[in-house]
């Protein structure tokens, strides 16, 4: 029995994982969510910004990792539009340009935001370092036109925005080390306030920056998106995703415990 369990076909585990993901997707369950400090800090920071402030949203993730950052973007943009905060979108990833453009348009339409007045999407320029450093001096030097080829000088909301001095917060929606680049160059050199919405894979790397205040807040993966949606009282993709993930996590914890128990039992038997 023990041997059979230890040599179990891994495809059975895949099947179990598939079931615990599919069933809660078909029959949605609402589990309680408590808001963690990093998400609360980000929400509070945006909440205290005066109407008319500008925040920059960096869509620094690829299509293969959009599951977590997209719900975060939706929640934060919804918050900004509801408070009259203007959103400047851009990306350091070439593969995200159309995704980010479409996402911003969709969320803006849902919130009756007007392009050029409430939000703008600058698009992509190659090179992480020159882009981050260049915008610190003059955004128009890096992005002379937006993604729709309109010169920045003709976009009403960009009239008073020259560089980071006019931007109250940069939120990096990241799936790799771009947040560190924003901290190292934009925060250290230009004192730009940085927040992060990161995929679960890189959460652990971000906590030291949170503790030192180099990040004003953080949304950790699906959890962060769900927490932000709770703060806005607007459950969305993050809440649905987190509820489904909770069942999968439970299954993995059970499998880890079973695997360890079986391992030690087998070792004792062999001894």
């Amino acid at each position: 029995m023990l041997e059979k369990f230890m040599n179990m076909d891994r495809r059975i585990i895949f099947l179990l994982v598939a079931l615990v993901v599919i069933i809660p997707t078909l029959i949605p369950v609402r589990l309680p969510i408590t808001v963690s400090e990093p998400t609360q800090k980000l929400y509070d920071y945006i909440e205290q910004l005066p109407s008319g402030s500008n925040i920059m949203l960096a869509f620094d993730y690829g299509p293969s990792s959009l599951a977590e950052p997209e719900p975060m973007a939706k929640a934060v943009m919804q918050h900004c539009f509801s408070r009259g905060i203007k959103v400047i979108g851009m990306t350091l990833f070439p593969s995200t340009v159309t995704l980010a453009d479409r996402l911003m348009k969709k969320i803006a339409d849902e919130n009756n935001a007007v392009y050029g007045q409430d939000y703008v999407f600058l698009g992509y320029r190659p090179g992480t370092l020159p882009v981050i450093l260049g915008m610190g001096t003059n955004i128009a030097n890096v992005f002379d036109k937006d993604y729709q080829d309109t010169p920045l000088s003709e976009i009403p909301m960009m009239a008073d925005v020259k560089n980071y001095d006019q931007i109250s917060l940069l939120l990096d929606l990241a799936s790799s080390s771009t947040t560190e680049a924003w901290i190292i160059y934009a925060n250290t050199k230009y004192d730009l306030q940085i927040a992060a919405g990161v995929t679960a894979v890189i959460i652990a790397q971000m906590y030291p920056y949170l503790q030192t205040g180099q990040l004003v807040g953080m949304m950790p993966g699906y959890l962060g998106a769900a927490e932000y949606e709770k703060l806005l009282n607007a459950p969305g993709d993050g809440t649905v995703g987190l509820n489904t993930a909770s069942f999968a996590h439970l299954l993995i914890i059970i499998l880890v415990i079973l695997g360890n128990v079986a391992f030690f039992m087998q070792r004792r038997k062999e001894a």
Partner: protein
Amino acid sequence: MDVFGFLNDVLGFLIDVFGPWMDVFGLWVAAILTLCIYSFLYKDNPFYRFAEHLFVGISVGYGIVIAIHQGVIPLAWEPLVEAFDGLWIEITGDVTPESRQALWGLFRIIPIFIGLLFFARLSPTYTWLIRYPIAILIGFGAGVAIPNVLQANIFKQTQGTVAPFDKIDEIVDPTTLITVHTFDPSFLGTAGAVLMVIGVLCTISYFLFSVEQRESYKWFSIFGIGLGVIGLTLLFVDNIITDGLTLIEIVGFVLMFVGVLGGALCTVLYFLSSVEQRNTFNWLPIIGVGFFILFIIGFIGIYGNTIWSGTLTPWEVFSAVLIVVGVFCTLTYFFFSVEHSGAIRWTSKIGIAFLMIGFGAAFGNTVMGRLALMIHRVGFLINDWIGSIIALFG
């Protein structure tokens, strides 16, 4: 008509005719490719390979097109064309402020030329030319990165590790509601702190084995330890004299003083002793731990009150101490200049535990991230794809 123009027209025609169906077509393509990728979970198969190769090919192709449209054209091509237009106007004589401004674009020839040198790699004769753009990139990267990385990842992180201790004696004055420090250093205390820093620097210099060790070095370190002791004494005396302390706090300060002094002495003796001496005086680390316990008792005696009623919660104080212990033990694990035996071995073992907890957290988060991707895809298949089929026939 060129080839691109023809293709553009064909695409335009297809979009006009099949426009309303393009979203549905895209949905089906995405769903079928998702299933192709997941088929690998059963076993490797041609459908998976097709989807994998398609993904890699499209990613690269799409990336190049975007890089050209969002990078090369607006940053290199357009300014250069405008600059040459401006130059032509300059020659023909109809100069305008705009045409003169556009002339600055000519300077872009320099970075464009340097960038093009990357293609020298393709020629065996001129391959050496690639060294220039690489050298410029590395020089620029290092020049920009070193000061900022030091500031963000070393100084700020070190500061962040000890920063909570600055708040450990902070309380909110009930009458003025202003946050104040219980123990404010006077001139005496500040002088003590400065002496301690000099002492620490002198002592550390003794362990700098990269330079030739001389007899004077030993005296230098003894001088450092002496300065450190004087500084520490001044610091504690300052607190005892100037802050009007209670008996418990005075006892706490004395215990902390003895603890720090004794602990430092044990550590220095341990480092200065040979392996044989360490085997003989193997009780030395135990005495060191005893002094450390004295220090902890003294610490609680002094800060016990503010830990419970200060601006930091007991949990925050515990976290601050834990971070310092974690950093110290983990760094000890990577300190290979001394043999990992005795106290060092145990300290580094605790460091390994901290590392394992860190790796465990990273691994757990990675699993969470991968599951998020699967949940997103399953949500797409069920809600969007199957949902659209049901809507079509329902």
